[in-house]
């Protein structure tokens, strides 16, 4: 793949949180910046800019990705879901168990956690803690995140 010079603008259409959007971006713009600065969806955070911390996790065609490692042109005609599509009532266990402290990692943690919750069969082959390993949290020590996800999964199972 050849990468266009950075002043080359490209038009990109994609589905964002269920709605079709059109943006005109530089060929090297990161999805993270398009979301945050062009589309003004600042819920997705930048923690490291190199795919290590997971603060910018969004779902791309249903799979968690780091929005700092995706060029915007790569999401053309694809489906992107960000934290803005999530309502607080979906996260009651995360609230009650203390899964957020400073809140900087939380949007990414929540996107990964909800992906796991929506695909509980993942847990037959993967440990929950391994599935969460791509999201760094410096405050909680992870226990509250794991407990809230487990609680959330067991409620889901009961229903």
């Amino acid at each position, binding site marked *: 793949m050849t990468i266009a010079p950075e002043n080359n603008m490209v038009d990109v259409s994609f589905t964002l949180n269920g709605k079709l959007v059109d943006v005109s971006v530089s060929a090297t713009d990161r999805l993270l910046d398009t979301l945050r600065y062009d589309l003004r969806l600042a819920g997705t955070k930048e923690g*490291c800019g190199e795919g*290590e911390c997971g603060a910018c996790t969004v779902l791309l065609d249903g799979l968690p990705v780091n929005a700092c490692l995706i060029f915007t042109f790569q999401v053309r005609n694809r489906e992107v879901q960000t934290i*803005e599509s999530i309502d*607080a009532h979906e996260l009651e266990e995360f609230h009650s168990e203390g899964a957020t402290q400073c809140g*900087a990692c*939380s949007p990414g943690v929540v996107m990964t956690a909800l992906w796991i919750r929506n695909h509980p069969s993942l847990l037959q082959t993967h440990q929950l803690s391994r599935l969460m*390993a791509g999201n*760094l949290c*410096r405050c909680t020590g992870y226990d*509250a995140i794991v407990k809230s996800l487990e609680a959330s999964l067991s409620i889901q199972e009961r229903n």
Partner: protein
Amino acid sequence: MLRVEARSKLTGREVFIDDLPAEDIWWAGTVRSSLPRGRIRDIHFGSGIDWSSLIVVDHRDIPGPNEVQMIERDMPVLAADVVRHVHEPIVLLAHPSRRIVRQAVQAISVTIDPDEPMLDFRHPPTPQQIQYGSDNVFKKLKIEKGTVDEALAAAPIVVEGEYETGAQEHVYIEPQGMQAQVENDVLVVKGSMQCPYYIQHALMHALNRNEKQVRVIQTATGGGFGGKEDYPSIIALHAALLAIKGNRPVRLIYDRQEDMAATTKRHPALIRHRTGVDHHGRLLVQDIDVLLDGGAYVTLSPVVLSRSIIHAAGPYHCENVRIQGRVVLTNSVPFGAFRGFGAPQSQFANERQIDRIAHELNIDPVQIRKINLIKDGQTTATNQVINDGADRIQVLDRAIDLAEYHDRKKAHEVFNVQHPTLRRGIGVASFFHGAGFTGSGEVQLASQIHIHGRPDGILEVRSSNVEMGQGALTVFTQIVAERMAYDQDYIVIVAADTSVVPNSGPTVASRTSMIVGKLLEQACDDLSRQLNGESNTDGTALKDAIIRWHHIRPDQELIGKAQYNMPPDIHWNDLTYEGDAYSAFAWSTHIAEVEIDLRTFVIRVINFTAVQEIGKVLNETLARGQIQGGITQAIGWALLEQCHWNNGSMQNNNLSDYVIPTCPDVPPIAVEFLESPTPHGAQGAKGIGELPMNGPAPAILNAIAQATGADPRSIPLTPEQLMETLLT
């Protein structure tokens, strides 16, 4: 009570500084020194950039003194003629395009004539390396109790040890950032911070402005851990200089690599112990030398040293103690505040030393702690009489029970004999942490807090202490709700804005819940006094009383106020370093279990137990979160987090090469609290934010020593270092 701002954080609605609208923003960048020490000869603005389209600032644009106001004023806002560390800021740039700013930063080349840098704090400087006073020593402190030399000479057994701890990067997940603009001659600076008034004072000093001309507003702060105590003053100054010169709103956000390279870290330490004991393991004399690497400027190093030496002898009673501390200059990026503030370093050394003494005497590591832990009526190294009703032996015993220490230890011994390649061990550390500013520090702060009874019946708390993840908003709400018997929905804690809130001091030193929370209780009582006639007359609820108060006095404000006064029973001598160093200590014992793979030398912490006496648990979920989070950060410091240095600059300044604990790295952490309320804290609570940073490193290394027979004395203990320790 659940965390009040949790929903907005979980759903990404919380507004951090870089989440503010950015349409009219000019983005800032920083040109830095590439050498650790030298003289700036030339600054060359390269071709290919339209320099007239940028705001360009150097030291000549600083209206006042070129000094960052901290404890001292030795650090320049921007280097003028000399540089003292790599990454020292020299030129600032701003432009509406972030891309152009990045290119422009690259297009500037600074020529520096090198001088001989001082790079290893463990060695004395050569005459050419002297840059501070006559010996590069920023601060020297001494604690002396009893007769140390005589006791050492008389002691039947003397154990010596030398211990080292490395730098640690904070890795708050939100990198540092500030935004500045001038509005009607008022400089408004917003951003991620722990200490709004520190920043205001730094801006007033270097920009020649009065307090009415500088307004500092905290935005949601994505973790601090001390890293946003001192450094934000520098970023605020830089953003402000650009905003003033260009008359534009300027945003200065560090990306992760710049943040890790340029901002402060935990002080590296070299600590020596000589301990005299009797044959039962009773401590007869402790002679301790603490040496800290301060980096290129003073920052907060003198108070870090102070806290470090006060905690250096541990939570033990000993009649003869000498602790000498020095923090020295190196041409390294300055070291600064980090959770624990010197105490984790010195207690790491002490708790390894205690274990090594036990090993030498062939007595149980639990037993030696039991013999020596302070009992009520006994004294700390500063001769502070401890009489708080807390039972430190009970804390230890409870941890031993909870961890099933003795059974696990036996099981590990059996396992180690049988298993060909894995080794398991269990280690203990007992420690303490004093909350609030040291000695007379709280008196000098003279913190004030206000609670407004608004005309709509809402109680509004005004404090400069910020929420940074630790739960300040929730705990303050809870304190008011309980003190006033009021519904939490009618209580708000306003954002820390220096034009609105009084100076209740910095958000540091585990002081917010305990010290400022106690002040808040007093402010509530002051408000109640003012309402007294109102609320009792016809039995109406507090809300009606507040509304009625305003109805009768339409033009007045109803404000409950409190200001810190030293409790009469606290005495501290700053000259002799004797007396009550802190109004309360929290006490804790940690127990760590490890498993080591002798083929790879990978160390896994497989179980962790933390028991702590914290006065009173204000909010169990928040308190547990502080303990578990602190332990995790300390596991990183002990085993994973290694800064690789070259020329006083961190080479692995990214999260691929500097590894912090991830979810699967963290063991189950059992947390239990004991309560012995202190009169000096809200509802009897003691500060706990920093406490859990002190125990894990020594508990883990003690476990590793037990598992392998090695004698590791420095952290981080990476697999490579463990291999070296075991094979040499």
